[in-house]
């Protein structure tokens, strides 16, 4: 009977387990183990050569320590209060006189390692920080000309400022928001003294205001949808400029697509301007190839026509940058061969060029991600022009978004060159592709828990026909951290960089260097790999559009406050050799430091030559497993390979157990102190009763003071108790799904002949 029952029971148990795993993933809104994120700084920058207080907020910033920056010209120390103790989340930041102007990045080192970064601006103007509400005309904040104000947008309100100017003066008002990582879509209005609108800007542009009468003017600022709150910060600059002065915008961070610009070694030496009028074929601007031209898509529906002569068989490469220069444009090129004379000339299409395609399929923002939520492509152009017949050719360049827009700032740069094969790389922390409708797009700092391996997805934009393989490597990593690049194969666009921290690594932070290396025309070419990250930890991309951007550098940290929940690694750190067509069995060790929901993790394989390894299950309840690789099925050719196994697991995560232990110790100490003080107090009270008259007063005073101390100790005890309860509650196990990646494994596939 028991035997009969056993099988169904086992089936039910198994079914329940699977269901639990699926459902825990399905309902687990928690994705990715906690990572420190610096979300705001106030102010968001400062003037060169000044020192000022900066307050920060963020996620998981417990035990925040060093505030550091991507440029060494900016330094910070903890602000100390009057009592000599650090004021929480407040730093004194100093900007050196020679610190370059522009956007730098701030990040903070915490218990869990380095935080995500926040744009930090360095400029020349004096800056102020708004410290009082200014949401009515009556309490508008007065700004001096040529100053900059740091503030946070008040939700469902309008922030009011005033300035004074004289008739004929040219005033430029600029507001940095999206370009400094803010969630604010700013609307800036210049109004008269009564608040009646005179000039409005809603598309993120500058207001260029010719002052009609001497007097006071009002700046009204609000969100496009009147959004606001701490994450909607902005920097408002009011500048007085001369009539013909070219006024630069406030600096802005770069979008991901910008990584592929400029081509290595590009200079401005041979640059030429476009010459209007050149809209019509008859007005074509004569050029010779190669060429390097700057121009703009202005006025509306502008067409820039260039004419050149080329011979059959010539191959040219055409590159246009405009969107990658931060402009909202979509350049498009048509090259035509011209035969005959106007008005009977015949034009034959040679090539039509538009868009740099994303190197990998990006998410279509469907039910859940079906690719990374990062677009490394661009609406700019890199394309090939093959001349099919001798003679005159014309190239027409248009902005497909420019039919009705009149913005002279929509500039472009057009380069036509002989092939200069090259590549540009960008990487981001690998994003999970869950199947349960999850659309999170979290910002992920490279903050390794000791024992963890973090995968970075790297994509390449190839230039001018280069299709060779690209090796990936990193330098200047913290002690105990290593990086293994799973190269981008020939003709492919994607590789993986694995960054691993040893289980016993000490806490550390460096600004690492990240490169790709390839052999082009017999020469070894090394190019930097830019890093990208989300600006915000977006939990659902349907309710908030993720906004990825490039980072200024590559901060990498390791922390040991918590260890990785599991480390899967080969039993030996060696080169695993196998003969082509045969089988390789690799024993794996599972160093487990957490409980998991579910008994197994399904692992897939990263790494060229081995991506076809069928997914396999590895136990989460055992300390070892084994993977069998069938080289015959994989058809992997002889050579050296790096691979890794990855999968998703639901971790029963206990947050900040250190805090629980510390709170326990604190409570114990408080208890001991309270007990000691109580005993002392009792003793003194008794002494006071029996003290001689002459000493009674002083004895009673001592007893009273002791009683006060007891009271204070009891209060401290209560606080310590609350602290422990809070820490214990925080540490209660939570189901969190995250990516688990094995440490890299090196395999050498030997030719079959050699074995023979």
């Amino acid at each position, binding site marked *: 009977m028991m035997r009969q029952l056993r099988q169904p029971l086992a089936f039910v148990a198994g079914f329940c387990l699977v269901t639990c795993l699926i459902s825990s993933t399905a309902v687990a809104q928690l994705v990715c183990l906690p990572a420190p994120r610096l979300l705001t700084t106030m102010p968001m920058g400062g003037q060169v050569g000044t020192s000022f207080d900066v307050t920060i907020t963020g996620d998981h910033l417990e035990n925040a320590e060093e505030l550091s920056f991507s440029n060494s010209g900016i330094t910070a120390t903890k602000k100390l209060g009057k009592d000599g103790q650090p004021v929480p989340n407040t730093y004194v930041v100093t900007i050196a006189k020679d610190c370059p102007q522009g956007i730098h990045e701030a990040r903070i080192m915490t218990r869990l390692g380095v935080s995500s970064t926040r744009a930090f601006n360095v400029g020349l103007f004096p800056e102020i920080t708004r410290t009082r509400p200014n949401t009515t005309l009556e309490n508008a904040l007065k700004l001096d000309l040529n100053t900059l104000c740091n503030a946070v947008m008040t939700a469902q309100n309008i922030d009011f400022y005033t300035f004074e100017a004289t008739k004929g003066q040219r005033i430029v008002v600029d507001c940095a928001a999206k370009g400094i990582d803010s969630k604010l879509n700013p609307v800036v209005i210049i109004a008269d003294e009564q608040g009646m609108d005179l000039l*409005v800007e809603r598309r993120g542009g500058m207001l260029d205001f010719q002052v009609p009468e001497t007097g006071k003017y009002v700046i009204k600022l609000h969100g496009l949808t009147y959004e606001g709150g701490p994450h909607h910060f902005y920097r408002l600059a009011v500048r007085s400029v001369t009539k013909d002065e070219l006024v630069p915008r406030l600096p802005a961070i770069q979008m991901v697509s910008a990584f592929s610009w400029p081509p290595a070694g590009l200079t401005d030496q041979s640059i030429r301007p476009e010459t209007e009028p050149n809209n019509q074929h008859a007005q074509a601007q004569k050029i010779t190839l190669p060429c390097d031209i700057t121009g703009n898509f202005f006025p509306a529906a502008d067409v820039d026509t260039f004419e050149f002569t080329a011979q059959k068989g010539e191959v040219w490469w055409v590159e246009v940058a405009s969107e990658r220069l931060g402009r909202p444009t979509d350049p498009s090129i048509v090259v035509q061969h011209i035969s005959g004379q106007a008005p009977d000339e015949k034009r034959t299409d040679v090539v039509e060029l538009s868009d740099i395609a994303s190197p990998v399929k990006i998410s279509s923002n469907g039910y859940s991600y079906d690719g990374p939520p990062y677009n490394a492509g661009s609406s700019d152009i890199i394309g090939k022009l093959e001349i099919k017949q001798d003679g005159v050719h014309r190239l027409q360049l248009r902005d497909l978004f420019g039919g009705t827009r009149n913005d002279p700032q929509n500039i472009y740069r057009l380069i036509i060159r002989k092939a200069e094969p090259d590549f540009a790389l960008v990487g981001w922390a690998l994003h999970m592709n869950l199947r349960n409708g999850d659309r999170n797009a979290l910002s992920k700092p490279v903050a390794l828990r000791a024992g963890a391996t973090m995968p970075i997805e790297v994509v390449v934009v190839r230039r001018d026909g280069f299709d060779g393989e690209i090796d990936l490597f990193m330098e200047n990593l913290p002690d105990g951290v290593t990086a293994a690049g799973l190269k981008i194969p020939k003709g492919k666009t994607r590789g993986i960089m694995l960054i691993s921290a040893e289980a016993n690594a000490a806490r550390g932070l460096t600004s690492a260097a990240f490169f790709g290396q390839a052999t082009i025309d017999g020469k070894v070419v090394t190019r930097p790999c830019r890093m990208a990250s989300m600006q915000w930890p977006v939990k659902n991309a349907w309710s908030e559009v993720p906004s990825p951007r490039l980072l200024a550098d590559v901060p990498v940290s390791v922390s040991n406050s918590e260890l990785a929940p599991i480390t899967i690694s080969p039993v030996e750190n060696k080169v695993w050799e196998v003969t082509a067509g045969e089988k390789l069995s690799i024993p794996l060790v599972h160093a487990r430091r957490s409980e998991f929901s579910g008994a197994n993790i399904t692992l897939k394989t990263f790494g060229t030559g081995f991506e076809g390894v069928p997914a396999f299950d590895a136990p989460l309840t055992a300390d070892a497993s084994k993977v069998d690789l069938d080289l015959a099925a994989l058809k992997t050719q002889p050579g050296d390979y790096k691979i890794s196994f990855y999968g998703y697991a639901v971790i029963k995560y206990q947050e900040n157990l250190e805090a629980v232990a510390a709170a326990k110790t604190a409570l114990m100490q408080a208890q001991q102190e309270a007990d000691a003080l109580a005993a002392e107090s009792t003793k003194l009270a008794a002494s006071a009763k029996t003290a001689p008259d002459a000493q009674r007063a002083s004895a009673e005073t001592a007893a009273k003071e002791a009683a006060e101390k007891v009271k204070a100790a009891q209060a401290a005890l209560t606080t310590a108790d609350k602290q422990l309860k809070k820490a214990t509650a925080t540490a209660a196990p939570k189901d969190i799904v995250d990516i688990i990646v094995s440490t890299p494994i090196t395999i050498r596939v030997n030719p079959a002949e050699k074995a023979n």
Partner: protein
Amino acid sequence: MTTLKNASSSRLFVYSLLNSLVVTLGCMGVAWGAEPASPVSFVNDVVPVLTKAGCNMGVCHAKAGGGQNGFQLSLLGFETWDDYESMVKEGHGRRLFPAVPTKSLLLMKASGETPHGGGNKLPRDSEGYELIRRWIEQGATYATGQEPTLVSVQVQPERGLVNMGEELQLKAEAKYSDGSTRDVSHMALYESNIASMAEVSESGVVKVNDIPGKVAVMVRYQGKVSVFTAAVPLGAPVLTVPAEKNFVDKHVFANLKELGIPPSPVCDDATFLRRVTLDICGRFPTEKESEAFLASTDVNKRDQVVEALLRSPNYADYFASKWTPLLKNRRDAASDITANFAFHAWVRDSLLANVPYDQLVRELLGATGTVVSNPPVAWYKRVKDPKEQLEDIAQLFLGVRMQCAQCHHHPFERWSQDDYYSLAAFFSQIGRKPTGIQGEDLIFHQRGLAQAKNVKSGEMLKPMALGDEIGEISPDEDPRLRLGNWMSSKENPFFAKALVNRYWKHFLKRALIEPEDDIRDTNPPTNPELMAALEEYFISSGFDLKKLVKAITQSNTYQLSSMPNEYNLLDRQNYSRFYPRRLQAEVLLDSIDHLAGSTTRFANLPPGTRAIALPDNSYTKSSAFLKVFGRPSSASVCECERIQTSSLAQSLHLINSGEIKSKLAAGGGRAAQFARSDSTVEEKITELYLAAFSRKPQPEELKTALDYLTEPVADAKGQPAEKKKPSLKDYQDLIWALMNTKEFLFNH
């Protein structure tokens, strides 16, 4: 096809032989002495009979999706070949019986000899019956080979003065390609554009009623139309008219003189200020504005106030609230908020900056990029189907309703399906790329030859603008911009007309052409000279909207009193007085807040945002007040979506709703302030009248209000005590009473 047309099948051929035989026998047997059997043309004779009998109306055999009981005719006979096929070939030819034409199912049904849902349409003794019988008899061919084609139809007379109560017989004459003419008065169809002014019989007799003005009768014959325009005079003595301040007055007063309708005098200052502030800024004048205006002795103060109002952001807010529902700024999902706010703001900012109207339309029409960087792109988010795009653009900016022409020739107009799809071709190269926001694409010009397929003929058509050639469009050129060029050209017969007509209606309640977005030859303006002058003025001003508003509101025509004199009460279209109209939903809500001193909070918007500045329709959904008073839901390009009629629900809402009560009882409201204030009761009443009506109270009004507020109350013994001090509730009651007057609820 050609062979089919002449002898569509062997079956027909046999019928023709039989037919000839019957005819021959008939001729031999009976010498009828009737007119010789001249060839009957299917196109020129038979189809007009069917049209006149109403067989091919939309409700009968031209009903979409199979006609009536399987017998399908084209609407009003526009597709004669299709009709021929239906009648002769379909149903195995069962509808015709050439051997005995009178036994043809077609005639049996039409004459009611066989049960027919449509009744007896062609009695046996009717001319139409005889024509069809003869056509069958002659072989029921599509073409006789000799018939000319119809070129035009002309009504006679084309215009005239018709006195009230008089009748006039219209004559319709068809002209053919061979120069021949035919009196088709008995076969043409007639339709009055204002039935209350003039009725027209089936035979073309126009009977004019007792409303003075201009009325048109459309005469339609086989796809050709002609219009008779009647001036119906009142005939009263027009001894004086106000001074002509500009061309508007010149043409309006000339028309009034022609029709003998004496205008009301120019209204007083208080009425003017309230009227023009409501019409330009969608709000009441403030008490301060009223006092200053009434006190001013400047002879140009009316012109100056118009200038000042047009400079105010309220003007932009108010007119944005007019345009954005027509441009379908609709919130279907929470994520639409950014697009909707950006689009509304674009319209509003453009109006504030007085961007020329042609440029505004061009920016919308040729929008590319993302919504945030170029907000008119949001229109393409709302209106995705190219057919809907062309229909909306045509109706909104050209005043032309093209919807009918998608499936068949426009019944009242010259627009064919080719015209429809040629217009669609302008929208054929719109490229879309997905963005991070669900349902929101970025828009670009997709390189390629612009063309659209006529779904009926299968022909690929290049872009043409309502029949106008616009030249070759290269694959690189965005055809929408070419359409924009055509629209804003000075010669365009629709673009300026549609706008001035729409704006005229905004200020004068009735458009020169009604409905304001149905401009066609068969629907002429009530004052063609004024229409032409407005068009010319608007075009020559460079499509300057503010100048147009100025021309209208600074005229004495706009400033006439709404009080009728002994003659012009019946006038509904000649502008001999100002026609009062109920305040729009948003304006009324703001005005109530203004009078009660209350505020209405709207989601996502800062405190103090007025209802006229609401960006999209989501606020209508969430506000019972706005819904009841007819704020549109941004689903249609028709202004008729805004309900301006009155209803019981509106009255009840004003009289007794919790919303109004809470406004009266607002803590910081006017009643509460009055109850706390030390100023005299007279001063408070004066303030209320200024706030509600922009004028001070008349002595009798002041006395009534004073009596009510200070009415002595009886003491314990029932004896009248001293005059009381008004309570909070008394003030609330007075505000409530003023709020419910017509003078408050109407712009007059």
